[in-house]
C-alpha cells in the first residue's frame, strides 16, 4: 500500500470549529427550547417522558399481606408526591418490633391506589439540559434538540462519568497546585494523572479532569468497573468526569491538544465522559465555545459526523486523513508506544515485526531522528483526524 493508503484512526481535534450537538430524546419527550434560542449548559431544553413512566407497585406482594388489607397499609394519598426510595406502604412485622416497608421506585406522584393495594406512581419527567452553550438550530419533532456552537472540539480516547461543565483550569504540570484546586473547574493536566491528582480532583469537586493518561488500576480504585461489557454509556454515577486523550499508562498530552485547551483558560468547557466502543462508537468529548453563538447553520454544507451525537462543518476539501508519506502520526503500541513520528515510507509488502508476525508496516522517523518500522495498525493521527484545522463557516454572523 503506497500513497493514498488507508484512513488513519485517531480522536478528533478542532481548534476553531462550527459544531453541532444533538441532544436526543430516546423515548420521546417534550421539547421546551425553540429554534433560534441561545442556551447555556444549564438551560433545560426538553423533558424526557413528559407523561412520566408509570410504575406499578404491588403492595400486597411487597409486604406479604392479603389483598384486602394491602390498601390499608399505604401511607401516601393519591396526588401526593414521593421521592424514589421513600416509604409508600408499611406494616408491623416481627411481633411489632420492626416495620416491613414498601418503597417508591421513582420520584413522582402517587396517581392511583387500587382497592387491591396496587399503587401506580407516575414518575416525573426527566429534564434534559443543553450541556453546551450555543444556539438551538433544531427543536421539533419531539425526539431531539440540535445545538450549534462555535469553538474548540476535542475527542478523547476513553472517558468515565457522565456530563459536566465548568471553567477551564489548565495545570502547568500533572499535579495539583500548592493551594489546591478550585471547585467546579474543568482541570487539564499536561501529563499522566496519578492517584494524587485524581484524589485532588475528587476532593476539590472538580467538574471534570482532562488528562492524557492514567493507570487503569487507579481508576478501579475510584470505583470504576472495567468488566462492564462494551463499557456502556455510564448510567451509574462515577465520582469524576474523566477524559483521557491518549489511553492507559504514562503518556504525555499531545502539545497541540494541550495548547488548544490552555489558550481557552477560564472559558466554560462542556465535558462528556461517555464512552462506548462498538455498535455505535461514542468517544468522550470536550467542547469549549468561544466567540459567541453562531447565527445559523452554514448554507450548502453538510456537516461531517465525528461522533454519534456530534458533527462538524468542514471546508469541503478536508476529510479524514489517510496514511501516507509525510503523515504526522502517533505510535499507539509496541516498542515506541506513545512516540510521535512522521511517515517516511510505506512498503507495499507486509514485513516481519519483532513478534514474528508478518504485517503491513510503515517506516517512520521518530522525534529523536531515528527511524523505526511500525505496524500500520498501530499508528494514529498525531494531532487527531481534524489536524487542528480551521473549518468552513467559521465566519458566522454573530460573534
Amino acid at each position, binding site marked *: 500500500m503506497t500513497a493514498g493508503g488507508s484512513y488513519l484512526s485517531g480522536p478528533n481535534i478542532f481548534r476553531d470549529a462550527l459544531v453541532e450537538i444533538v441532544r436526543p430524546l430516546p423515548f420521546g419527550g417534550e421539547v421546551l427550547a425553540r429554534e433560534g434560542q441561545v442556551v447555556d449548559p444549564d438551560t433545560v431544553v426538553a423533558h424526557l417522558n413528559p407523561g412520566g413512566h408509570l410504575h406499578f407497585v404491588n403492595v400486597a406482594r411487597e409486604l406479604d399481606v392479603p389483598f384486602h388489607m394491602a390498601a390499608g397499609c399505604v401511607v401516601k394519598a393519591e396526588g401526593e408526591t414521593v421521592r424514589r426510595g421513600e416509604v409508600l406502604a408499611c406494616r408491623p412485622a416481627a411481633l411489632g418490633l420492626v416495620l416491613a416497608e414498601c418503597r417508591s421506585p421513582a420520584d413522582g406522584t402517587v396517581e392511583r391506589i387500587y382497592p387491591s393495594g396496587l399503587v401506580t406512581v407516575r414518575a416525573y419527567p426527566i429534564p434534559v439540559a443543553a450541556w453546551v452553550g450555543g444556539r438551538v438550530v433544531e427543536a421539533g419533532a419531539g425526539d431531539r434538540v440540535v445545538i450549534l456552537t462555535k469553538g474548540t472540539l476535542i475527542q478523547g480516547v476513553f472517558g468515565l462519568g457522565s456530563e459536566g461543565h465548568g471553567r477551564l483550569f489548565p495545570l502547568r504540570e500533572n499535579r495539583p497546585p500548592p493551594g489546591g484546586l478550585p471547585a467546579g473547574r474543568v482541570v487539564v493536566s499536561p501529563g499522566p494523572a496519578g492517584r494524587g491528582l485524581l484524589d485532588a480532583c475528587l476532593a476539590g469537586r472538580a467538574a471534570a479532569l482532562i488528562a492524557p493518561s492514567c493507570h*487503569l488500576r487507579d481508576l478501579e480504585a475510584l470505583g470504576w468497573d472495567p468488566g462492564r461489557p462494551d463499557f456502556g454509556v455510564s448510567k451509574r454515577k462515577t465520582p469524576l468526569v474523566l477524559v483521557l486523550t491518549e489511553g*492507559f499508562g504514562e503518556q504525555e498530552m499531545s502539545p497541540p491538544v494541550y495548547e488548544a485547551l490552555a489558550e481557552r483558560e477560564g472559558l466554560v468547557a462542556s465535558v462528556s465522559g461517555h464512552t462506548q466502543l462498538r455498535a455505535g462508537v461514542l468517544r468522550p468529548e470536550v467542547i469549549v465555545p468561544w466567540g459567541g453563538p453562531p447565527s445559523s447553520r452554514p448554507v450548502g454544507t453538510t456537516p461531517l459526523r465525528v461522533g454519534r451525537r456530534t458533527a462538524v462543518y468542514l471546508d469541503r476539501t478536508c476529510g479524514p486523513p489517510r496514511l501516507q508519506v509525510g503523515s504526522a502520526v502517533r505510535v499507539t*503500541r509496541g516498542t515506541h508506544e506513545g512516540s510521535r513520528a512522521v511517515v517516511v515510507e510505506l512498503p507495499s509488502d507486509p514485513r516481519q515485526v519483532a*513478534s514474528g508476525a508478518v504485517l503491513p508496516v510503515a517506516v517512520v522517523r521518530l522525534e529523536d531522528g531515528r527511524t523505526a518500522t511500525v505496524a500500520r495498525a498501530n499508528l494514529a493521527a498525531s494531532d487527531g483526524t481534524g489536524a487542528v484545522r480551521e473549518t468552513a463557516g467559521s465566519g458566522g454572523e454573530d460573534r
Partner: protein
Amino acid sequence: MADAGPEPGPTERPDSILGLDCGSTTTKAALYARDAGGRLTLVGRRDSPTTVEAPLEDVAVGVREAVAALEETTGWTLLDPGGDGFLKPQSGPCRGVDAVVATSSAGGGLRVLVAGVIRSMTAESAERAALGAGAIVSEVIAIDDGRRPHEKLELIRQVEPDMILLAGGVDGGNVSHVAHLAELILTAGPRPRFAGDGPGRLPIVFAGNRDAQAQVREILTSESLFSSVPNIRPRLESEDVLPARLEMQDLFMRHVMAHAPNYRRLVSWVETIIPTPAAVGRAVEMVAQSLGDPVLAVDIGGATTDVFSVHDGVLYRSVAASVGLSYGALNLLAQTGAENVRRWLVGSSWSETRFADAVGNKAIRPTTLPETPEELELEQALAREALRLSWARHIEIVVGLKGVHQERDLGNVFDQPPTGLPLASVRRLRAVVGSGGVLSHAPEPWQVAAILIDGLEPEGMTRLFFDRGFLFPNVGAMAGVSPETAREMLFGQALVPLGTVVAPVHRGAGTGAALGRPCLEVAFTPPGESTRRFSLAWGELRILPLPAGCRARLEVSPAQPGTDLGGGPGEAWEGMAAGGAVGLILDARGRPLRWPGEELRGRAREEVPDHRPNPAALWADAVRRAGLGPAAEGAGVP
C-alpha cells in the same frame, strides 16, 4: 449425442471469487482464482479497518479500501473504475471476478432480544435458534425470569435490538402467556438499533404456539415488521429451530443490514451477505459432514468468542458475549481474573500496573496489533482464557431438551437420567477447528495448536485444524451460492491441518498421574522410516513432526490401567495418525491442566511430591526438541 446440459453460470462454478467479511474491527477481502489445473487457490488477502462508525459511517468505504489493497498485492483489477462496485464477471486474466460473497458482523452484528414463556424451555430453544442464526442474544426475557413487569419493560427499552424472537407455548397449548409477552413488548415500544434518532419498525419473529399466532399478530403487527414461522417447540419432546433461524437471517439481510450505514450499497454489489457467525456455522457443518462428528470449532474475535459444535448432525452455537481480545478484553480480564491470564506469561515480565494498562489499551484501541514478543504472548494468553470461558458457556447452551416427558417403567424408575444434560464434551472429538485474528496472525503454527490445546484441553485423540486466513466466512457465504465451490474453498484453502493431539487422561483416584510416573508406551512409524519406540511420562509434552498430507502408523498403550486414551481406561489405541503443520502432539500434562503448587494447596495428604512445571512453559522445550521454528522469542518461549 446426449445433451450435456447447460454450462454452469459464473456463480455456479466461478473461476474467481471475491470474499468479503465486514468484522467489528477489520474488513477483510480475499481473492480466489482457478489455476491452470482448474484448482481454486487463494490469490491474496488484505485487511482494512471497518468504517461503519463516524466519521465515515459507510461500511462500503472500508470494503473498497480492503479491495484496493488487495488489488495492489495481487495485481488484479477488481473495483469497477467507472462505477460503484466490482467488475463482474471476470473478463480476462486478472480482471474482474465471477462472484462476490460477503459476511458481516460489523456494528456489533445481529443483536436479538429473545422472549419465551419458560426460561428453561421455550426461551432456551429460542436462544439456540437465535445463536444458530448468527446473532448476539442481547437479553432473554421469560415469564418466569424473576423480573417484575416494569423491569422487563425497562430492559426491553434499553436493549435496542435489531430484532425480537418471540416464542412460547407448544402447539395446542396455552395462549395467554405468550400473548402477555406480546403485550409487554408492545408497551415497551422497543426501537431498532439503526433507527438513528428517528422512529423505526422493529422486525419481530413469532415462533410459538400456532394457536396464538393470530392474537399475537394482532397485538404487534401495527408497531413492528411482524412475521411468523413454525413453532420452535411444537411439542416438548421436539425442537425445530431451522425455520426461525432462516427467517432471522433473511430479515437480517433485508431489513437490518438495509438500514445499517450504507449497507444497501454493499448489498447491491454482492451475490449474498449473511451474518458472519452463520457463515462460519455452515463451514463447520461442512467439516463435520466430511470428517464425521462430534466436531468443535472456535472463533476468537475482538468482542466475542463463538463456539460451534456438531453432534449427531446438529449444529450448535454459543456466544461468550464480551469475551474477546479487543473490545471484550477488559471484560474477559474481569471474568477470568488477572492471575489466570498472567499464569500463561512465561517469557515476559509484566508488572501488574503495566499488564492492566496493556489490556485496557487493547480494549480502547481495538484495531492495534501485537508487535513485540511480549505483546504477542499477552494476546495469546488472553486467547487461552477466552477459550476456557467460552467453552464453559457452550456446555450450558448445548444440552438436551428440558421438560421432555419421559416414560418410566420398572426397569428405570430409580435410574432415569434427568433431561437437559450437556451434549458437548472434549472427549472423543473428531476434530477441533480454530479461527480468529489471534490465530491467523500467530507467527508459528505451533502457537495456534498451543492456544487450542491449552484453552480447550481436548482429551483422547483429536485432529486439529485452523482457518489460517479467516476464510471460513467466505466458505459459508459461498455455500449458499455454490456448495461445490464452497467445498473446494474449504478443503483446498481455508482448512489448514495442524496435526493430531494425543491427550491421555487419568481416571480414578490415587497418584497414578503424578509427575514422572509412566503414562504411555508409544510406537511411531512415519512413512518411509523405521519405527521409533519410547515411553512418555506424566507431565511431558512432546511433538513429533509429521507434515500435512502424511499419515504415520501409531500405537499407543497406557502404562497404567487408569489411563484413558478415549476408548476407556486401560484401552490401547492403534491406527494411522494424520499430520499437519505441527505434527503429532503427545500431551501428557494431564487433564485438567494444573499449575505448580496447585495440588499441594489444601491437600496435605498428597503422598508424592509434585514439582510440576508451568504447563505453558513446556511448549518451548517441545518445540525446540522437535526442531520447529523459528519460535518467536517470548511467545511462550522462556
